[in-house]
């Protein structure tokens, strides 16, 4: 992970003049989404600038949707007091939803916390918890992977039978081997050579 430069950002939770004739006050929620440059190293080497334009910020499950300004700031207007949920949708990054309390009693006071890990935020700066890699990474070609494939195993098994088995046989006591051969002959077990065409001629 690249170093994240600490950026002093402000969260303004300003009370705004009442919107309609309704008695409820309406507030604005302002914040910032920050995607640290260099976090994108795993994918493309750099975070594409165009990507910022595809980030959406959603309030309360899509009740309000807003977009980011070039500097990453966003704002929701005319929000009633209460506890709200802000989600950030950005392809390639995982953001935790944020719980934001908009208080009617003391406007300007903000309480925000990540719901995933219950971490409190002193200011509404949202950063991705991690990057999301949507594709499996193809492992580079290796002899092992070829050997591990069914075909490789078949060849390996055959080779083992063809070359290791005779070795095993060779290491046996010649006496014992002769006895085993006798036994096999008497039982009439066909040898490999007799199975093959031409083998029966012997």
């Amino acid at each position, binding site marked *: 992970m690249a170093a994240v430069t600490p950026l002093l950002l402000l969260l303004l939770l300003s009370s*705004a*003049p009442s919107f*309609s*004739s309704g008695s409820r006050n309406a507030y604005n929620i302002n914040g910032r989404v920050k995607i640290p440059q260099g976090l994108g190293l795993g994918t493309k080497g750099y975070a594409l600038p*165009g990507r*910022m*334009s595809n980030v*959406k910020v*959603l309030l*309360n*499950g*899509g*009740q*309000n*949707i*807003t*977009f*980011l*300004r*070039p500097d990453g700031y966003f*704002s929701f*207007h*005319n929000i*009633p007091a*209460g*506890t*709200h*949920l802000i*989600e950030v*949708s*950005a*392809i390639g990054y995982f953001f*935790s*939803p944020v*719980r934001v309390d*908009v208080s009617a009693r003391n406007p300007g006071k903000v309480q925000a916390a990540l*719901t995933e890990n219950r971490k409190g935020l002193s200011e509404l700066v949202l950063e991705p918890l991690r990057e*999301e*890699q*949507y*594709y*499996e990474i*193809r492992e*580079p*070609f290796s002899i092992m992977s*070829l050997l*591990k*494939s*069914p*075909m490789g*195993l*078949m*060849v390996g*098994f*055959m*080779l083992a039978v*063809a070359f290791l088995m005779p070795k095993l046989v060779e290491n046996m006591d010649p006496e014992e081997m002769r006895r085993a051969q006798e036994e096999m002959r008497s039982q009439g077990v066909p040898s490999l*050579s007799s199975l*093959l065409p031409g083998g029966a001629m*012997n």
Partner: protein
Amino acid sequence: MAIRSFLILFILFFFSSLNPILSLYEDQVGLVDWHQQYLGKVKQAVFHTHKTGRKRVVVSTEENVVALLDLRQGEIFWRHVLGSNDVIDGIDIALGKYVITLSSGGSILRAWNLPDGQMVWESSLRGPKHSKSLLLVPTNLKIEKDNIVIIFSNGRLNAVSCIDGEVLWEKDFEGESLEVQQVIQPPGSNLIYVVGFASSSLFEMYQINALNGELLKHESAAFSGGFLGEVSPVFSETVVALDSTGLILLTVSFQNGMISFQQTPISNLVKDSFGPAKIIPSSVTGIFAIKMNAVTIVIRVTDENKLEVVEKTNHETSISDALPVSEGQQAFALVQRAGPEIHLRVKLAHNWDDNLLKESVKMDQHRGLVHKIYINNYIRTDKSYGFRALIVMEDHSLLLLQQGEIVWSREDGLASIIDVTTSELPVERDGVSVAKVEHNLFEWLKGHMLKLKGTLMLASPQDIAAIQSMRLKNSEKSKMTRDHNGFRKLLIVLTRAGKLFALHTGDGHIVWSYLLQSLQKSKVCQHPIGLNLYKWQVPHHHAMDENPSVLVIGKCGPSSDAPGALSFVDTYTGKELSSLSLVHSVAQVIPLPYTDSTEQRLHLLIDADKHAHLYPKTPEAISIFERELSNIYWYSVEDDNGIIKGHALRGKCTGEVADEVCFDTRELWSIVFPSESEKIIATVTRKLNEVVHTQAKVIADQEVMYKYISRNLLFVATVALKGSGEIGSVTPEESWLVAYLIDTVTGRILHRVTHHGSQGPVHAVFSENWVVYHYFNLKAHRYEMSVIEIYDQSRADNKDVWKLVLGKHNLTSPISLYSRPDVITKSQSYFFTHSVKTIAVTSTTKGITSKQLLIGTIGDQVLALDKRFLDPRRTVNPTQAEKEEGIIPLTDSLPIIPQSYVTHALRVEGLRGIITVPAKLESTTLVFAHGVDLFFTQLAPSRTYDSLTDDFNYALLLITIVALVAAISLTWTLSERKELQENWR
């Protein structure tokens, strides 16, 4: 023993080497999936063609999309989908580099950077009251080098700086009953006129200095006849309005602050009257149009405010906005449909008699009428003006016309899909010719050699490109015949425009499209609405020669007692077989599990008066139906009253006109939820066509549990009345959510669970014997997903093998829902990070493959989540036996694994629904997600255990076999030689 262990090792190796992918490699994108981007029906378009660079057009649509399109090919440069309650009121281009959008009833103004779509600024506009929203971007109005945007919304006039969105000045129009109709900015002046009506008979005019918002003049004049509808500006200081009867045209002039009315009865202009008229506003100087029933009349206003009819036509006519051409002249276009062609005329505003351009363009009948037209000019090589026209058709498609040709077209109707069903493709009948096979074999081998080179890393970059294009262009997948695995199908979709499309699952191309006449606006039916699609005829056993067909159900108008309309469409040819206008309404449609001898499925339509109507109306169908009369039950949900009712049939309709297919119904039971504490927010049942492989579930220690599988289970979620609003509007103490499982035959509540401190929205999915639902937990302030599994206890004693052998089990005893069910439920809840738009579950042909939940997240992605994560038997420390069974240790939240997003790095913007269809291959299911975008892919929830993957390398297999044969012959000759030598010894 050693051999055995070796064998086990071998098998293990074998399986581990089979591709363990649930997810994709990046180079596999587009192999089985496709993604299509749409916009929706265009409601406004602004051209950007001033510079010599790219020719572009900005559009806003009814799906709340703002997008920049390439004018040459119609491709999307960028696109933003605004929220569903952030409806776009107007768009324009300012400073030549910003796209300005006004949305949310005129309260949000945004500027987007034209080349890349980055939002530049956003401002929130407020006002004293609700009103019409108008956006005006004057080109020549400057305050200190800053262009301004004039917005009238919510009863307030705002001037906003183009550069940073600051409000420069604002002016309220507080008048109690004032309804502002138009804001006019005469070109070349610093004045703004705001005109409107007050108390229905007063015409008000305000003259405002555009530079500082100062009110210069305010005049009002009464007109006893009152006003109706909209006004159309004809000159910068003259508007045209209609009186309240809609029979007299008023020319209102407010030159020099003096308001004067001039009345012209429409009957003076046209001889035969057609009833009340409606003004179609246009921005063309001196021209406006009125519409009376189906007749469109174009009227010219002369300099002395005299009205003159210039055209009267029965054809639906669309008029474009004014396009300034040289020397202060304006051009505009008129377009009409006549038979197979559309006629386009471009005229100068002050010269009606001559046409600048007159073209006829051949147009597909199934695009319907022309709804909108936008024109733009370009300078030809001979310095004369040429015109291009962007037209929006009745089926919501967008086309660019130039020089009498269709340059490009976009099927934007596909952005608003109402319902989806599938149909099989025809069976391949003709044998494949031998020559073709040989050619294919060679190609096939060549392809696999290339692939082998790829795996061995021997391929050059050209080879890699060739491999990739070969994989993507696999012609097999877009063939028009049925395939062995059942991957190729037709997706039949019904769009809001009343058009049916058949999309091929292979590559998503449109096979046919059909504009349903029954869902088009007509004299009888002013506001037709498409409702549902059903499979009407699925020939398989004894009707193989018939083509499959679908049933399209629509109704006339939004009210519940509006008469319905049916259409039957052949899915192979895309032709309408027949259509019916019903006399009764359609409140509910029940596809019955019975088919007649031609494989037509019986459907029961319930109308608003609770009568049931059977379709098809054949004697055969009636006789089948009467046999099953007592076995048909259904339920209805009345959300507003909080009542769920169960119904059954009583017999033929009595009293009314003798109708063979009409049946009376009776109410069996009803569940009334206390209206002061519970409100129904979600009801879900199992999919009708779902297949369950086995009722038994073997759990750890060889125990068996029996799933309670009933087609008649209904999941209902209710919330406290206070908690039915948005998140953040209630405290956890005053909100709760109750989930019910109800048997819809008897009305018995099988299970009830309360989640305190929780609220909606609830999204749920019901499959086999379980239901999974997603809701918001206010205490933790996180979303939660809960699972309820229901098991049948009455069969629990069947575990004994001896009982089974001796036949003392009750497995074959008939199940009646009237007998008291002995069920137990198991449930568990987990946290889930995201908001959810929709949930679906995978379905396979035989139901053997394990299930995955497909979760459409708020970010418009589709996440596949294994059902095993939502197993109520998960514990913190599963025993060894449970681990072997596949139980995952308990965690408090559900994992989000990025690789299991089935949409990978794509978004299905405006996601609305996910449909899963089983393929013929048991392991595979087809997934179709639709919203503004369409996305299709194949999924294998338990991996493709029954077929080789596409990645399987046949060349490697061949080489292995060759190598083995070579090795065998080599060792054989070696052993021969050895034997010979031994014999010589």
